[in-house]
């Protein structure tokens, strides 16, 4: 009997795929949580000044921003925080399991700070003007450290997802080696600075709500703007450090995204220009808030938050997620839930050779008995299951799906042999740097290729339903089509 691999059932989302579900929830969370941590630092700076210079009116700004934060960050931030866990659980159960089993104590530690932070924010907001200023300042400082602690703890895990940065963790399996990885400090600096900018842009809404002519507008507005600009400049510098700590596979992907002067990377722009434009726009806005705080209006400030979310955080988070490809955790677990290298420190075994020998359908835990053996009758269904298990985490299977659609990447070919050639060649040998090594036995390659060709031909949809229609188009057996298929497939977002 074949060895059983602990691969969970699959949740398949047509069109956008599970990756976008995670991405949408993650982006909302990043804005809410970044703003919360950055705002905590802003509160501490402002409140220290309020006590030092005896300016109690500053506390009114903090109270208003704090109330806003309760709704903005502590409803949607605290819901989408566990929400990321839940969405990753259903999209990539083995990936989150790998992280949980390595970092359970780090997450448990973060939970302590998270709990303190929630109590702290209520205490901070509702005791303004009700307890003496010195004691209130202590609440604010403990709230700041708790918020920062949640940041530093999660960044260790996120940066490990990128890579450990050396071989040491693979040999020791120690959480400390995993946590304090090569990418950790740079990512911490980058996120730390950018959350100041988030807090400043969101905080500008509260500045805009201060009555016109009130000197508090200028006083607080300039502090908010300075903090945001500091974050923006610091974030840009830290991003260059961040790039220098990335693994080689991520740098290959970045070739598509950064200009040549940015280190040693070729000039291609798919992410850099939108992010640079957004950064400049936000920088100009914050400068304007600094110079002309009295002219600021709420709708404009809200618009800037929307721009930050849609044109800043969304592409940034998607790029960061893409850079990890083909891995999802520590460069030992692939995005498609298969373990792709040994981790002797934890006794973890590479599963690729097992699959190459026995096949995915025979070894994965959740495969119906009838599909474990491929027959001419079940070939399409087996091929569909293989496509969903091996590919759907990163690719739309629909022809018009937005997530790197397989039909488009295969140039719409209906030539089974050509698709199988790709499966048996670059894919089986792991020579595409941003794709997992998917080395399937011949019969599974054939079933997968048959299914993908049928989707391309339009005779089967991505859900495996037969479509009654005219005979498929003539297979693309031209030299051009073959040459195109042989080329390395470019990644797309």
């Amino acid at each position, binding site marked *: 009997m074949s060895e*059983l*691999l*602990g691969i*969970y*059932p*699959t*949740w*398949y989302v047509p069109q956008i795929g599970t990756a976008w579900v995670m991405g949408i*929830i993650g982006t909302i969370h990043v804005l809410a949580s970044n703003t919360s941590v950055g705002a905590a630092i802003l509160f501490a700076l402002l409140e220290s000044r309020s006590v030092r210079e005896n300016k109690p009116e500053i506390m009114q700004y903090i109270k208003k921003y704090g109330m806003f934060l309760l709704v903005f960050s502590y409803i*949607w931030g*605290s*819901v*989408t925080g*566990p*929400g990321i866990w*839940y969405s990753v*659980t*259903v999209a990539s*159960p*083995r990936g989150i399991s*790998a992280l*949980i*089993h*390595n970092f*359970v*104590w780090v*997450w*448990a530690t973060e*939970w*302590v700070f998270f*709990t*303190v932070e929630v*109590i*702290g924010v*209520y*205490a901070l907001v509702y005791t303004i003007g009700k*307890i003496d200023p010195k*004691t209130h300042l*202590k*609440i604010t400082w*403990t709230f700041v*450290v708790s918020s920062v*602690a949640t940041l*530093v703890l999660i960044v260790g895990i996120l940066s490990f997802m990128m890579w450990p940065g050396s071989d040491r963790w693979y040999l020791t*399996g120690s*959480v*400390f080696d995993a*946590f*304090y990885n090569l990418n*950790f*400090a740079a990512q911490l600096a980058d996120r730390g600075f950018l959350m100041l900018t988030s807090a400043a842009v969101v905080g500008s809404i509260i500045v805009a709500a201060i009555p016109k002519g009130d000197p508090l507008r200028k006083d607080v507005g300039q502090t908010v703007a300075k903090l945001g600009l500091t974050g923006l400049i610091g974030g840009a510098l830290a991003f260059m450090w961040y790039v220098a700590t990335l693994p080689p596979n991520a740098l290959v992907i970045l070739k598509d995204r950064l200009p040549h002067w940015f280190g040693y990377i070729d000039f291609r722009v798919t992410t850099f220009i939108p992010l640079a434009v957004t950064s400049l726009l936000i920088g100009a806005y914050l400068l304007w808030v600094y110079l002309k705080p009295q002219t600021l209006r709420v709708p404009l400030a809200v618009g800037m938050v929307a721009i930050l979310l849609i044109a800043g955080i969304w592409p940034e988070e998607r790029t960061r997620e893409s850079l990890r490809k083909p891995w999802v955790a520590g460069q030992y677990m692939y995005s498609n839930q298969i*373990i792709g290298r040994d981790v002797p420190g934890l*006794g*973890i*075994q590479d599963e690729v050779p097992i699959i190459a020998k026995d096949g995915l359908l025979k070894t994965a*835990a*959740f495969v*119906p*008995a009838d*599909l474990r053996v491929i027959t001419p009758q079940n070939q399409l269904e087996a091929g569909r299951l293989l496509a969903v298990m091996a590919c759907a985490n990163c690719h739309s299977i629909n022809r018009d799906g937005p997530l790197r659609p397989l039909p488009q990447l295969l140039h719409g070919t209906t030539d089974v042999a050509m698709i199988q050639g790709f499966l048996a060649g670059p894919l089986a040998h792991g020579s595409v740097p941003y794709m997992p090594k998917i080395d399937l036995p011949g019969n599974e390659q054939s079933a997968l290729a048959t299914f993908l060709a049928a989707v391309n031909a339009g005779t089967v949809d991505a859900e495996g339903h037969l479509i009654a229609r005219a005979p498929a188009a003539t297979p693309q057996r031209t030299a051009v089509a073959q040459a195109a298929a042989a080329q390395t497939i470019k990644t797309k977002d």
Partner: protein
Amino acid sequence: MDHTSVSAMLHALQDPAGLPAPAWLFQYLNVLTWAFHIAFVNLALGTALLAIIAFMRRHQPGWAQLSVAMTGVAKVAVSMAIVLGVAPLLFTQTIYDPSWYTSNVLSAFWVIFFIFSLGIGYTLWFVFYFKNHDVTHATEAKDTTVWWATAALCILVFDGFIMHVLSYQGLFPQKWMQWYAPQGIPVMNGMGIHAFELPRFAFFMVMSLTMTGVFLLGYARYFRARTDVSADYLDLAHRIGVKTTYWGVALQLVSGALWAYGLPSAMHVFAQPLFWLTALLIVGVALYARQMPVRSSAPQAYAAMAFYALLALIVSVDREALRVAYLAPFHYDLASKPHFEWGAVVWFFATFVGVGGSLIAFYSTMLWKAGKVKGLYTADRTVSRLGDTAVWVNFTWLAVFFAIGVWAYVRNIAA
């Protein structure tokens, strides 16, 4: 699937990284932290229901004030329930990873629905809070305002049901494959709700009344110290507390009995001391509340809350014992692959006790004392020292964190 196949499947699904501490430690933490979580879930749902009922009676003396107070309590309790739910979620995933992940994937649509609906439900509650947070204008609120709260509560209860389903489905590994591929073809849309047990769900829901009842007893006692809070209002809160506790206990007994009757006979639930201890505690809460005078002493009033806390802990133990019993036929071994890392365990407990302890001590003492004072509260020496300690401990934690970081980072780079 036969038991041997299920056992092999469960073993294969357990994470190959194994457990970084003894399984019993995670099990204990899971039970303890779930008790914290359910306490605030109960408080949130119970006070939300009471806020709605009180709102509808807001023209009677005291009820408007009660509605406003309970609206605020529910608002904070939902936040606490969410944050305290993170820990049991973490520990469940650590030791029951096959059950949790499989159940979630099989109902993935509802998992995502849970996230967004929880956010929407909580937002609706905040809308109600903004319309019903000022006692002086509470009686002027429009009748339709209550729909915000009603919609929010319905959504939150349904979210509780989703959590129930996710936990419950995980107890039946022998059915997972059938649920995933009912006709031999995998159904991957995650739309299915495959198993639930209404008496079990109802038991946890009606426990909200018990919690809210004992909370009101403590609430009424706490505000006796405030001269600006009317004694009639606090007497009303006390009486409603006793009555709500009765209702909660009665419904818990009914739903608990139905739940127990529905359990597999092989579990011999009525022969288990835990079952009788739980029943005794439930009845005990009602009897204790019954004998409390309206103007009870502080220890009497707060002991009722301690009684509930003990009940929540025992219910959490029951829940874990049931899970062990459900999975026993498949020889599910929690500790199949240990790789202990004691440094990380020490790290967590040092943070839990040191940072958590000092900060909670500071916040709770300060809020407790400030709440009893009308107007500005100036910290006394105790609160001031607790505050200094909390700040000092917090910054020390950060310094130690980065010191360990430098050591580990350099070691990593040198490798």
